[in-house]
């Protein structure tokens, strides 16, 4: 077996998710190559070369791959896929954007959001917002798979794989990058944080999200939100946790003013310990919370911050 892992980049650097995808590749077994594609991505390639279990890193460094636009990235993967039995990417917005193109052009199915590996052709994936787990077997010659990174513990970074340049350059006349507005934050990434504190509609407005800041600072937590809080404009879209937002599984998840709709639970119910703070003692979030505190968040949050 030979596996190609498409690396995730975050502002030109290797994203933490890639180490989880390599772990998934390890569970499948075989040679593991990592593809780093973008513009000026040498540093990311060097980080990828350190990941345990990687045989080699292939780098496609060219302006056409800048911002990892779907059309050139898909075409590049089609060029390279012939050498592999499996192509993997994380179920990030990049992996989701690019991998189905490879699958379609190779006339194979894609398995999305895989969270478990049974064998080289049989995988577990969540369906219906994680309310059922399907075991699926693929008889396609090439397996194209996106990985739910919370399902696999990251590999270590004590390796030293060789780095090799890929000279394939594709053309792209159909799409172009216009601009990006990236959220700037000193906090850990939502997907990788050990502690996440999320606010919902109960927070009332964006200003009140500041009540979570002090607690997040003390706990080294990332801050998330429910869809309702994002839709209402309290916070930006990249903070949404849930079926159609980000999937998190931290050691500690604190839900504040969130009712616990199935779409929200789908994004956080694999957290190790869940705390819910809600004024409605019947809120469904309490059915999944290890510790529930019934009360007004505007009183509880300042007290919690001062006592931590």
């Amino acid at each position, binding site marked *: 077996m030979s596996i190609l892992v498409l690396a995730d980049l*975050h*502002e030109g650097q290797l994203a933490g998710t890639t180490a989880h995808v390599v772990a998934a590749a390890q569970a499948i077994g075989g040679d593991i190559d990592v593809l780093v594609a973008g513009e000026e991505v040498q540093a990311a390639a060097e980080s990828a070369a350190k990941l345990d279990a990687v045989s080699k890193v292939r780098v496609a460094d060219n302006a056409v791959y800048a911002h990892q636009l*779907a*059309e050139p990235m898909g075409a590049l993967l089609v060029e390279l896929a012939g050498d592999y039995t499996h192509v993997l990417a994380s*179920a990030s*917005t*990049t992996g*989701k*954007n690019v991998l189905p*193109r*490879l*699958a*379609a*052009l190779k006339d194979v*199915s*894609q*398995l*999305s*959001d895989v969270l478990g590996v049974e064998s080289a052709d049989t995988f577990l994936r*969540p*369906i*219906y*917002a994680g*309310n*059922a*787990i*399907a*075991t*699926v077997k*693929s008889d*396609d010659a090439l397996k194209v798979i996106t990985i739910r990174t919370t399902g696999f513990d990251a590999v270590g970074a004590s390796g030293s794989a060789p780095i090799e340049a890929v000279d394939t350059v594709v053309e792209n006349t*159909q799409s*172009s990058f*216009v*601009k*990006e*507005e*990236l*959220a700037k934050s000193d906090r850990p990434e939502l*997907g990788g944080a050990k502690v996440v504190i999320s606010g919902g509609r109960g927070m009332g407005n964006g200003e009140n999200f500041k009540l979570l800041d002090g607690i997040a600072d003390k706990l080294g937590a990332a801050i998330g939100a429910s869809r309702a809080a994002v*839709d209402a404009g309290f916070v*930006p*879209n*990249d903070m949404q946790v849930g*079926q*159609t937002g*980000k999937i998190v599984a931290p050691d*500690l998840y604190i839900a504040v003013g969130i009712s616990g709709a199935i779409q929200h639970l789908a994004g956080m119910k694999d957290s190790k*310990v*869940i*705390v819910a703070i809600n004024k409605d*003692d019947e809120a469904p979030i*309490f*059915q*999944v919370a290890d*510790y*529930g*505190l019934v009360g007004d968040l505007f009183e509880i949050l300042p007290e919690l911050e001062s*006592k*931590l």
Partner: protein
Amino acid sequence: MKILVAVKRVIDYNVKIRVKADHSDVDLTNVKMAMNPFCEIAVEEAVRLKEKGVATEVVAVTVGPKTAQEQLRTALALGADRAVHIETDERAESLAVAKLLAKVVEEEQPGLVILGKQAIDTDNNQTGQMLAALTGLPQGTFASEVAVDGDKVHVTREIDGGLQTIALTLPAIVTTDLRLNEPRYAKLPDIMKAKKKPLDVKTPADYGVEVASKVSLLKVESPAERKGGVKVASVDELIDKLKNEAKVL
């Protein structure tokens, strides 16, 4: 410009599904079905583009069993002009759906195709991207804003780090995210009118597309059930439990 919208029949988002006792699949008998919420957003966007004079015609298409015509009628009530039903009782997966949609694109020559970013049953998030690859058209996925400007469309995308705007040459494929718009509700007179709008029925064979897939479903299980824990009476008790019982602080 003509807009093609793909809509899928799925279980209503409020329904909590159950796995069948024999683990062969989930139990969908007598479950309330509806249009996939992301497809509602796709229909709404197409109809708004028509209302703004950017589009001249909106065609809705679905792949699925006879009952999926209910969702096409909903699309027609929301403002689509006509509909195409590709009827199959087989479980058409993303690649097969994308191949069928590619044939419809070839036939209809739309300027824009709008799909949902994911169907809330299988959560695949693939069909639009596959369709783009098969038709050779550019894609703007997870759209929270779509602006047609001459022969280009600017799409603002919800990505993990924030927002990204790209420019695509038309014709193009767009998939919708939650913040693109708030879909309207169908009004009774429109629901009545929708019954008279044209709806063509085709089969995958008409397009020469094989629906069968090389992926088989071996079993379906319920995830490990999470048990509710305890209620604590105060912030002090919460901190104590997190420190000494859960040991996460």
